[in-house]
């Protein structure tokens, strides 16, 4: 197994590292670090206080008593960099301003291509500072705000403050507290009432300093009747020391608004990826989470939708692909607080080698949520005899008119399917990739085209030499 992984790693075209010297790097988790981050960003006093308070909360909150093993992470907390500022000095307005070195990186990641095709604007995050950011005139004309989170705080402080940390307060969980203390980078999005943004907003994230933790923070507000699709993709080079990523994403979906959040993460396999994603959906609103988890050593991520208004809806579609050395603990939460709310969760996981993928989910129906409906489907595909999968679905139902269902299946890469495809002249590896792609199809069909293509390429790479 390790040989085979090495083989894949060698071929892995995103696995490279650039030579960019950081200007300012802050190591260690102390009030001083937090103060310096806030100072470097020129933040208002209330934010500095918020960060310091969050750090205190972080110290007080317990580590999760469930889920993946985080013991190594605990030991290393002080060894991470909590802030790294790249040498470009600030957000670039056009592609020309982006340094060559970084451009080259993006080129290999395919960003310019994507730009040509569908990008409305790019908030590309290099380390923790936004280095390149273009917003199409169209969006500006519509009054849509799509800027870095830092710029959001500077330029739209009142709006920012009204929503920031209202959905995921620092007290929510230990990693939300950590993020609240040291957050850096991320996007701020506001879509005014009735505005439908036709093209997806995209942001690319990169991590590039050894032992470095990235703490992006994204705040999305979709006002009444508005519509937006936000896409976040992460890929990162491989390092030897453990890396840490804890993001917080808050989305406010107002009355009859429509929001989609798509993310595919392919962090290096020594990364701890601990993310809190939450949306609050008002009357008639809709939130879709599309969540792909391929990389990281450990991922803990459970996109949540709080269905607060009558008729609010949410869907969560997720994919996890866990290989040897990875434990992907992902899932979803639907909290039904109002009548006629509905939700759907589809989770597809693949475990390969000794990889372990876990689904952890919650469907909660409060006494007021008459006629709430939710359906959960979890399917796990196991490639090898030593592959592992878990399912931990929680259903807490306090309303007798609710209709809640959960189904899960576990299957393996079936010999008869492989054989059938082979008799039709398809080589074994390709046949395996084909079966895996078919298994994921209900989720991948919802992905933007270039993501789907990218994902399929990854699956082919992963399935090379893994059967037989």
């Amino acid at each position, binding site marked *: 197994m390790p040989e085979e992984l090495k083989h894949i790693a060698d071929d892995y075209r995103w696995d490279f590292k650039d030579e960019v010297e950081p200007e300012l790097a802050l190591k260690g988790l102390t009030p001083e670090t937090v103060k310096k981050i806030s100072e470097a960003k020129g933040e208002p006093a209330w934010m500095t206080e918020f960060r310091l308070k969050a750090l205190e909360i972080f110290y007080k909150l317990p580590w999760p*008593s*469930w889920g993946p093993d985080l013991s190594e992470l605990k030991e290393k907390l002080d060894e991470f960099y909590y802030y790294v500022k790249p040498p470009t000095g600030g957000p670039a307005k056009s592609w020309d301003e982006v340094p060559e070195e970084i451009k080259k990186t993006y080129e290999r990641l395919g960003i310019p291509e994507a730009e040509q095709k569908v990008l409305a604007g790019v908030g590309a995050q290099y380390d923790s500072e936004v280095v390149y950011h273009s917003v199409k005139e169209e969006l500006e004309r519509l009054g849509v705000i799509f800027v870095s989170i830092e710029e959001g705080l500077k330029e739209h402080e009142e709006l920012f403050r009204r929503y920031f940390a209202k959905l995921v307060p620092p007290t929510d969980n230990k990693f939300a507290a950590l993020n609240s203390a040291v957050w850096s980078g991320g996007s701020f999005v506001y879509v005014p009432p009735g505005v439908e943004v036709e093209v997806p907003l995209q942001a690319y994230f990169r991590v590039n300093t050894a032992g470095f933790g990235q703490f992006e923070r994204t705040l999305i507000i979709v006002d009444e009747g508005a519509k937006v699709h936000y896409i976040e993709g992460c890929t990162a080079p491989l390092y030897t020391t453990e890396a840490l990523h804890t993001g917080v994403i808050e989305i406010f979906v107002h009355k009859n608004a429509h929001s989609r959040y798509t993310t595919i993460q392919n962090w290096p396999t020594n990364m701890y990826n601990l993310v809190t994603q939450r949306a609050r959906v008002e009357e008639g609103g809709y939130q879709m989470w599309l969540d792909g988890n391929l990389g990281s050593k450990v991922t803990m991520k459970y996109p949540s939708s709080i269905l607060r208004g009558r008729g609010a809806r949410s869907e969560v579609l997720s994919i996890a692909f866990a290989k040897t050395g990875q434990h992907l603990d992902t899932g979803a939460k639907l909290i039904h607080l109002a009548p006629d709310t509905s939700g759907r969760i589809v989770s597809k996981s693949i475990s390969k080698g000794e990889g372990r993928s876990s689904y952890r989910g919650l469907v909660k129906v409060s*006494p007021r949520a*008459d006629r709430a409906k939710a359906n959960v489907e979890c399917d*796990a595909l*196991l*490639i*090898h*005899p*030593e*592959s*592992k*999968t*878990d*399912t*931990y*679905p*929680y*259903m*807490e*139902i*306090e*309303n*007798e*008119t*609710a*209709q*809640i*269902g*959960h*189904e*899960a*299946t*576990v*299957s*393996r*890469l079936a010999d008869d399917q492989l054989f059938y495809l082979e008799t039709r002249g398809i080589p074994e590896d390709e046949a395996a990739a084909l079966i895996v792609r078919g298994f994921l199809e209900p989720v991948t069909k919802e992905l933007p085209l270039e993501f789907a293509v990218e994902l399929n390429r990854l699956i082919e790479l992963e399935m090379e030499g893994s059967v037989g």
Partner: protein
Amino acid sequence: MMTVSALDLETPLSALDEPAWLKEEREAARALFARLPWPTAKDESWRYAAGRLKSVPFDWPLALPRGKTLQKEELPEAVRERLKGAEYAGLLVFLGADLAYAELDGDLKEKGVLFTGLLEAARRHPERVRESLYRAVPAKDGKLPALMAAAWTHGAFLYLPKGLEEPRPFFAFFLHEEGTLSVGRTLAVLEEGARASYVEEHLGEGAHLAASELFLRPAAHLVHAHVQTQGEKSYHLYRQRALLEKDTGLRDLTVNLGADFARAEVGSELLGPGADSEMLGVYFAAGRQHHDHDTLQHHKSPQARSDVYYKGVAKDEGTIVYQGLIRLEPGAQKTDAYQTNRNLLLNRGARAESVPKLEIAANDVRCSHGSSIAPIDEEELFYLRTRGFSKESAENLLVAAFLEDVLGRIPLKDLADHLARVIEEKVFREPLLAEKGR
């Protein structure tokens, strides 16, 4: 009467007439009990039950044997009612901690079948008891298992020698007494190829802790039922583990209809190829009852099968909880494991929690689980009403229909009919609390 509670065990239990090795085992369990922490809501399995556990009166005096016996015609009405027309191979009736009545078919006795009180068996057949006791539900499993191991005073012992097949069921009735805490323990051992049915029913009041250890040696088959219909101010905490060796079959039914707070932890360890554990559950919480269930299908061997099918109904402010885990150890290939939990909520205020879990570490397996929570179907209700059924009758019919496929899978017709009647009585009973407006 002695008023020493289970929390202070030394004095009352030292008086029990039992072998020294057993006293030692108890002593070790007692030490463990003193050391282990009480479960809290942070313990996954107790997530929804820890609050209710606090209401269990562990300080009630421990029920101890008083040497009370009964003649057959003196048996309590509830027991005689249940035995009416029933054929059985053996019968045990416990009043509090006393084995008040015991009966076993003479022919079976001769063939080496044992069916008696566990305490009596420990004295008279120590070798049979000792080789299995505490092997399936050891004290180290937790605070309550430790208490169960240290403080049991009564319970049934069933032993079937190799190859013996008995079609008639063995019955044990436990009548618990108001204001006491009683601790019972049942041990059933089926030697190679043996076949039997054992039904244990718990009636009466008080707070009862029960542990059952079931041993199925190769090719043994057991139909087992644990039925709890205690009064609604009582408490019932139950833990069952069955060890299934190769080619064995267990068909198990757990029923919780009574008690204020009842919890059943039912698990099967599949230790050999060909082992098959079918675990059924029926529960119905009304008033403020809380019925909590935690199942385990633990596959340690390849080529075994297990199937959990638990169905619950909640009415008034009743709470029904199901948690279950299918765990496949590495190497448990060619496993079939299924888990289904269905819940029916009858009115506002009723609640259900369902947590069906899988932990799978083998790939060539067929595993699935499903769970649902739903109200009475309005269309079905209307349909029945157009046929002349009153709302209550229609609901009753739909509840019976909902539970039918579980009760229908237990090959004990009399028991299924009895349970159907108890359930019907609960459906028709006036709502305990005024239904809150929408």
